[in-house]
Structures are given as C-alpha cells and as structure tokens.
C-alpha cells in the first residue's frame, strides 16, 4: 500500500511517527502552518516557525526518505489580533519561493468572528496574487456549519480563485455536500474523538463518491493518530472496496490536487 499524508503537523510528532508512517507506505507528508497550542507573542515567532517548516522539518523527514511539503499562513486561532496578522501576512511572500512551499494554509475560521473573516479574506487575496493553492481549516464542533458557509462565501466572492485549487478540510456529514457542490475539494480528518472516524469517512465515500475527496490524520500535539490514513484504508478494505479505489482515495487524489502547485514531487 502507498499513501500520501496531506495534512500532518509533524513539528509536534516524534521520529517514531516518521518511521511508522514510512513503514506503512507514506510517500509524502504535507504540513500546514497551525496554532502551537499557545499564542505567539510577535511576528518573529512566526518567522522562526516558517523557517522550521521550510528548513528544519524537511531535513528531519528526509532522514526517513520522506518528502516534506509546507503550507504557510497565520492560523485562524491567532487571527483575532489583526495587527499581528498583518505583520505575519507581510512575512509570507518571502517564503513562497522556498522549494517545499506548496500554498497558503491552513487558513479559515475558528469562532467565526469579524476579525477572523477579515484575515481570511487577506489570505485569499495573498493566494490569488501569488497564484497559490489554498488549504482551508473549517471550525470545530458547533461552529463548523456556520463557519463553512462563511468560508465558502468568502472564497466564492473572489473571482480570481478557482474552486479546483482549494481544498476545504475537516468536512463532516453536514458540510461535505455544500463543499463538493461548489466545486471545491474536500478533506476528511480522521480523529478519535472529534471530526470524523474511519467508518464515517468511508460512509461519506460511499455516499458522495471518490472525486475531489481525500483523507488525512491532521496529527498534531493533541489527541490524533499519525497512522489514521492507513487505518482508514483498512476500513475501506473491510467494506469490500478494491485496491484501486483505496489507492485513488489515499494516493491518486491527493497527488492530483497537490501536483497543481508545481513543486509537489514524489521521490522516484
């Protein structure tokens, strides 16, 4: 089995996780910029984080033969401070030419505030001006339905953005239809307690088809499972899905979307 982990916060994981992922068939990992679990005190903290994502972490992954790619942004949890967000947004263009940077993400909303929405719109503009792919974080739990609708509206309001170059992540049963109907890609995040279990993800594959859909672990410093994608592949197998269908969901689909960046290359 081969797979791509399209969303993993590897700076929070151990080398044991890298070893397990590669052993399970992982051929590339993509790491969106996210919240560290605490608020950074200045833009300098983000500068260091972006260096970590574009210099240090690719080297750590390379030790396990795993190509590492990064998405850059200020995450929605720290977007309430619009002044800080502006300073961080100004840093990002300097990093966009780095060889492992494949887009802007994970942008989006957290508590669906006006400031978060303003910073989301600035990220969308940044992506449009620099012709970058977009990876979107949709809010947690009770805020997801409303936040997903606000996010879809914000992106659709910018005519420069092609829906096929945007992935809306963390979809669940109440948001997936709107995302796919609007022409976006959808990501299902496999978490033990929130977002979506493997069984529910396979239900959604059964109901909504195999196109413009991927699964990810979003493994980070919280309760999460770095091998969630291969575990979901096992769930598909238990349900009778063919090897070709499984390969499409966990390898071909992420490859198709991510290759639009031009920098996403797998090892030969």
């Amino acid at each position, binding site marked *: 089995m081969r797979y791509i982990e399209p969303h993993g916060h590897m700076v929070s994981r151990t080398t044991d996780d890298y070893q397990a992922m590669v052993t399970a068939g992982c051929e590339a990992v993509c790491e969106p910029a996210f919240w560290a679990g605490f608020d950074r005190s200045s833009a300098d903290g983000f500068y260091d984080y972006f260096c970590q994502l574009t210099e240090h972490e690719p080297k750590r992954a390379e030790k396990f033969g795993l190509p590492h790619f990064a998405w850059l942004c200020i995450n929605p949890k720290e977007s309430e401070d619009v002044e800080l967000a502006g300073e961080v947004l100004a840093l990002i263009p300097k990093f966009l030419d780095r060889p492992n940077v494949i887009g802007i993400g994970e942008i989006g909303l957290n*508590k*669906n*505030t006006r400031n978060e929405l303003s910073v989301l719109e600035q990220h969308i503009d940044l992506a449009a001006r620099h012709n970058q792919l977009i990876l979107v974080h949709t809010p947690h739990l*009770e*805020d997801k*339905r*409303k936040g997903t609708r606000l996010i879809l509206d914000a992106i659709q309001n910018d005519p420069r953005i092609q829906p096929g170059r945007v992935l809306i992540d963390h979809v669940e049963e*109440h948001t997936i239809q709107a995302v796919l109907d609007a022409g976006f890609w959808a990501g299902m995040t496999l978490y033990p307690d929130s977002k979506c279990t493997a069984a529910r993800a396979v239900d959604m594959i059964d109901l909504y088809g195999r196109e413009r859909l991927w699964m990810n672990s979003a493994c980070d410093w919280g309760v999460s499972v770095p091998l969630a994608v291969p575990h979901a592949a096992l769930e598909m197998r238990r349900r009778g899905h063919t090897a070709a269908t499984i390969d499409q969901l966990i390898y071909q689909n992420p490859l198709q979307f991510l290759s639009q960046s031009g920098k996403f290359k797998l090892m030969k």
Partner: protein
Amino acid sequence: MTRQQVLDLYFMEARAKLIDLAAFLDRLDRAQGGDDFRIEAFRRALQLLHQKNPERAKAVLLALSDPSSEPIARANTKAAAGAWPDAP
C-alpha cells in the same frame, strides 16, 4: 454491502458504544449539580436517533450546531464546546 454484512462488521462496535453512552448518562445522574447547555443539547440530539431518517448523523451534527449566519463581533474563547450555548 448487505444489511447482514453491516451487522456482522459493526454490531459489536455499536453495541459497545451504546452501553458506553448508557453508562455516561448513569454517571451523570449519580453526580451532584445541575445540567448545562451541552447535556441539554445532547438529550435533544438523542431523540433524533429514533427517527426513520437516512441522514441521522447529519441531523445530530446540525442539532449541535450554531444555526446563525452572521460573523460575531468577538469571541470569548478559542475553544469549541460541542454544542451551541444559545440554543433555546
């Protein structure tokens, strides 16, 4: 998959979750103090499981969601609670 295959594959797992859910409600009843908006929303969502609806998972998620559509002025917290605090 046939219904029999679904039962063979998932019944034991669902049974375990059902008993866990019952034990959670028992635990809650034994504990001191009053309810809050989360358990009230939880109990409302439980009723949806009895309905003959092919989209029960979606219905439960919607029942626990903020139904409003306008962005809020400012958040009091970064965290989500799992249910909408302002539900009537």
